[in-house]
Structures are given as C-alpha cells and as structure tokens.
C-alpha cells in the first residue's frame, strides 16, 4: 500500500513537472504550427551533435595546421604542413629511431602488429565459439552469457584484474610454479607484455563478435542443412560449403569492425601496461595522441591533431570499405 501511494505521488509530481515543461512547447506549436514541431523535437539532439561532434571535426583539421602551445585558434600561428612533415619525415620507415618523431613511428608499428595479431586471434576465437554455440548443446544460454560477460566490464577494471592475475605474486605464476616453471614478471618483459595485451583484448571483446556471428549463423536457413544431411554430406563439407560461405557477409562486417576498433586500442592496454610499458613496447597510436595533447605539459595540440587526422583518414577508408561491402551484400 505504501509503495503504491508513493508511486502515485511520484506520478503526480511528474505530471506537475511535465505541465510546466509542456506550456512553452505547446505555445511554440500554436505559434508555428504543427508542421514545424519535428524541428523543435530534433533541436536538442542536433545542437549537441553540432557542438560536440561536427564542430570538433572542423577544428581538428584546422588545428593540424597550427603550431605553438596556445589553446585557441587566435593564439596559434599557422604553420602549414609542418606538423605533418614532422610526423612523416623519416629516413627509414622500418626504423622508428631514424624518424624525426620516433615515438609516432614506434606507436604505428606497435599498432600494426597489435592489429594483425588481435584481429586474427579474435576472429578465430569468436568464430569457433559461435559455431559451437550454434549447435544444439545443453546450457547454450549460460555459455553465451559467460563469454559475453567481460564485454561489459570497464577497461580500467579489466586492466587491473589482469595486472593482478599476471603479477609476480599472481595466480599465473603460482600455477607455473606448480609445474616447476620459474616465475616471470610478464608485464615487464617486452614479448610477454605484447602477448598479454592481445590476450586481454581477445578476452574482453570476443563475446561481442561472437554474438554478431551467432546472429548470422542463426539466419542461415535450416532446410539447407536438411538437404545436406539427406545428401549425406560430411560435417566438414557442410561447414565449408554451406556455413562459411553463407556467413561470409557477417564475417566481413566483423573483420572490418574489428580492424576499426583494434586501431584505436588504448584504455585496457594503458592500464595493464602502466602507460605503454615496458619502455614503449606497448605504446599505441591513440596513446601517442593522448600524450602529445594531454599527457605532459607539452600540450602539442597541433601535432596531436595532425596525428588524429592521419588516423581518422585510415579509419575513414576502413569505414568506406565496410559501407561498400554492406551495400554489395544487400543487393
């Protein structure tokens, strides 16, 4: 009874608030007519998009051509392509040390390696899991939920949980000691730390891609499989002749999406590796942008914007490929 009276009080309160909100909006309607109402309803959204999404895009391109440490355009000298020249001048692109902006190129190579390993590993794990979950296996819902759970965790939480797991006194070392392997400080060793950045990334993102692939698998008409079983096709043949070809559109979408997101690796890796360590072994491109702009007192907004523009172009190309593929699939 008490709960009901509170909720009815809440309703009345809400009604009161709404009648105050309603008055000016209804006034607008009487003044401008019903035809103009959709513009009013769209206004808050469009104003916010305009200020916080479209304006920054315009600024980003502008800032890339300015130098100095000033914050606002008026305080910043125009420097033409200097920032891009600074980023791109290099004696040998395979050798970050020979570049003017060696950190940038270290970050690019680290990101490229990460993207290639992460995309391959995530795709394989997600595809295998989706194929298995698509079978009539007991406890399917439970397993689907389990694999999905890490997707919801925050990057900081993921970074800290894994940092503790991989600690010198962590569970992994305890387990290795049981097997007689000497303990290792994984995150201070270049090879291991890179390996575990990929492991953690697969761990926390594969559930999302599994869901997309699973939705694709479930859209494949069942009668195709019935026909295959009448023809006594081997499971292997069914997989390569029916399942994978029909899943191809979803696989492509997942592939491009994975690439777009892998290029932007930052937060989990940042927390896990204490800001890209050991040294610069796990310093990625977004981290470079972050550090140039906000990381220290340098505040090199021009250089950071130029790097953002370059990364934005790469992502734009990937997105266009995705859109083109999407169009092709639809037709």
């Amino acid at each position, binding site marked *: 009874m008490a709960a009901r009276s509170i909720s009815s009080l809440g309703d009345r309160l809400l009604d009161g608030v709404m009648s105050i909100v309603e008055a000016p909006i209804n006034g607008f309607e009487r003044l401008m007519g019903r035809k103009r109402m959709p513009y009013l309803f769209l206004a808050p959204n469009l104003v916010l998009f305009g200020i916080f999404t479209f304006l920054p895009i315009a600024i980003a391109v502008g800032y890339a051509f300015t130098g100095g440490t000033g914050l606002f355009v008026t305080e910043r000298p125009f420097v033409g392509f200097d920032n891009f020249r600074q980023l791109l001048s290099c004696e040998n692109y395979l050798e970050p040390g020979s570049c003017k902006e060696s950190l940038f190129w270290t970050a690019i190579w680290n990101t490229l390696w990460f993207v290639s390993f992460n995309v391959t590993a995530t795709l394989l794990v997600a595809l295998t899991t989706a194929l298995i979950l698509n079978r009539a*296996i007991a406890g399917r819902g439970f397993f689907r939920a389990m694999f999905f759970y890490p997707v919801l965790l925050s990057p900081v939480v993921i970074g800290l949980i894994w940092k503790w797991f991989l600690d010198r006194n962590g569970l992994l070392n305890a387990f290795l000691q049981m097997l007689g392997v000497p303990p290792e400080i994984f995150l201070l060793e270049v090879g291991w730390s890179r390996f575990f950045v990929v492991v953690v990334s697969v761990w926390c993102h594969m559930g999302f891609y599994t869901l997309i692939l699973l939705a694709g698998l479930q859209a494949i008409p069942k009668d195709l499989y019935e026909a295959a079983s009448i023809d006594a096709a081997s499971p292997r043949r069914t997989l390569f002749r029916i399942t994978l070809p029909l899943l191809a559109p979803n696989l492509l979408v997942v592939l491009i999406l994975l690439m777009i997101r892998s290029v932007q690796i930052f937060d989990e890796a940042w*927390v896990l590796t204490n800001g890209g360590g050991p040294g610069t072994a796990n310093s990625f491109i977004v981290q470079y942008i972050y550090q140039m702009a906000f990381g220290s007192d340098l505040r090199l907004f021009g250089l950071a914007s130029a790097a*953002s523009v370059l990364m934005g172009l790469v992502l734009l190309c990937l997105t266009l490929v995705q859109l083109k593929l999407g169009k092709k699939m639809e037709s």
Partner: protein
Amino acid sequence: MANGLNPIAFLTRTRRPGRIDITDILSWVWLIGGTLIVLIPVVWAGLSSLKPAAEITRFPPSLLPHAAVQKSVPGFEQPLSLWNVTIDGQQKQMAMVRRIGLKAQMVDPDKPGPPISVDVKEMTQVQRLTVATENFTDPLTRFDFLTFLKNSVFVTVVATLMTLIVNALAAFALSKYKFRGEKAIFLLIISTLMIPLTVIMVPAYLVVVGVGLVDNLWGIIIPTVASPTGVFLLRQYMLTIPDELIEAARVDAASEFRIFWRIVLPLTAPALAVLAIFSVLWRWNDFLWPLIVLSSRDHFTLQVGLNSFQGEFSVQWNYILAMTFLSLAPVTVVFLFLQKYITTGIAGTGMK
C-alpha cells in the same frame, strides 16, 4: 516438467539423441575451458580483495583469504602470531616472539615462560579464514573513494535520463513526421556513428574548454548525451507504433508534445529500457573521455579514480582490488538480471 527433470538426459542432450560423438566432447572442452578463462581472473581478483594486506603478497598464494591468528600474551605489548610447533615429537601451539635466521623464539601463550628456540622447519603458522573488511571500509572512509562513487552515480543517472529524453524526442520527430530535410538529418545523425572519440578527442576537449565545462561533471555528461545509436534504436522501434493512434489523439486535440509524452513514449518502453541499460553501462565504464576532461580529484569518476589509485598505491593491491570489485559489482548485477535484453539488444543493433 517430468522429462525435463532428468539431469542425465539434460546434460547429454545433443544433436542426435542417445549418441555423443567426438565433436560434442570437443565443444564441451572449448566451452568449459573458455568459461574458466573468463571467470578465473575475475574470481581471483574477488578472492584476493578479501585478503588482508599482509597476506595478499604471499607467494605461492592461498586460494581463500586466510589471516594469521594472533593472540595477546601477558608480558608482551603487541599481540603475537600463533604457530603449530613440533617439539620432541609433540604438537603444540606456541606464540612467536621474534625470528632470527632459521630459528624462532617461542613462548607458550598460556604459561609464558622464558622463550625457547625452535627450528623454522618445525613450525607452521596457525591461520583461519578471515575477510579483510578493512579493504572495503578504509577506501570508503579514509580515501576519496566515496567522492568518486558519488560522481560516477551522478554522471550515470543524469546522463542516462538526458540520453533517453533527447534521443527519444529526435527519434519521435524522425519516425512520426514527414518534413523537409528528414532524410538528410537522419543520415547526418547516423553518420556520426563513424566518428570515433579517439579521432576528435583533442578538438572536443578544446570545445569543452571553450564552453567552460572543463574539469566539471557536466563536461562529461553533456557531450555524450546525443547518441546516434540511441536515435537509431528508438526510431526503428517507434516506426512500428501505428500512426492511427497519433491521428486519433490529434482528433481529440492533443498537443504534439502530449502525444509524444502520453502515447509514443509509454509504447516505446521496451526500446527505452534497452537504451537505458546501455547508457548506464557506457557511462559507468567510461574512461578515456573523463580522463581527458577531469583534472581535480574532487571531480574524478570511479574509473578515473581507480586508475589514479593504481599509480599511488602501487603495492597496496588489497585496496586496489577491493575498489575494483566495488566498481565491477553493479555491472555484474545488471548483467545477471538483464543479460537477455543486453545480448538481444546487441544482436539486433550491432552496437556496443
């Protein structure tokens, strides 16, 4: 119900009833192995967060949170730790006074006499299961954890409410009206899906500085309110609401806003619920944007605060893990109850 109750039949139910082939076993191995890999780091962090500071760095670690049992012995200021000691083939409980190299000096806690020297190989510490609640209470009382928590709750609640209203209004306009520029505006909004924060974070920060919201909680709320996924999700749902309902209301001389508020919004409840769940998760877990915008500790959200704690208490893992666990708990609860909505929401819209 009757045949569903047979657990053996349930567990062995496969594609062809009555037969388990090798692929079924491999599937089970993959699924159970994967589940363990997902759970072990999380559960390990949870168990570790219950361990007292002295215990957490012990290697090899114990699985459950143990603590050394201590006892105050007459004649000693500090309580002494208890050990099981074998003396002359007899098991005894003794209190350790001090330890010198491979020998320890022990006294009988009940009849403290002169200390006797015991070989460290002959003794094991007496432990019992204890939950180090101070790991949770200390951060709440001594550190700024409560401030972070308050900030996070505020941001999550306010941003979610605003997200729902602003995007529902836009979706209503885009689904229930015919007007000039409708298609162009819809495409414009959807196109922002393709612009990741990482590309525009530097200029977006400058805009936030420009409008005076830097180092302010509103600076992380307002820029995230307009959401292309939100508009898309709600619009698709509102398209399924029959227009006759709206026409009927117009005949009754209801204002357009009243139609939105009284008719369309209640009917969109399922889609609003999905968007609300996502918004809560997004805002609660947000890291990069708050990291850029917020600079003073008073304004830190939980994620930014947790990250800064990590730098400060690099050795006090008991605190870090307890706070990690507190920030993970709400997400886990949301997931346990709303798992179905979340997974179908993602499968339906492809958003995260």
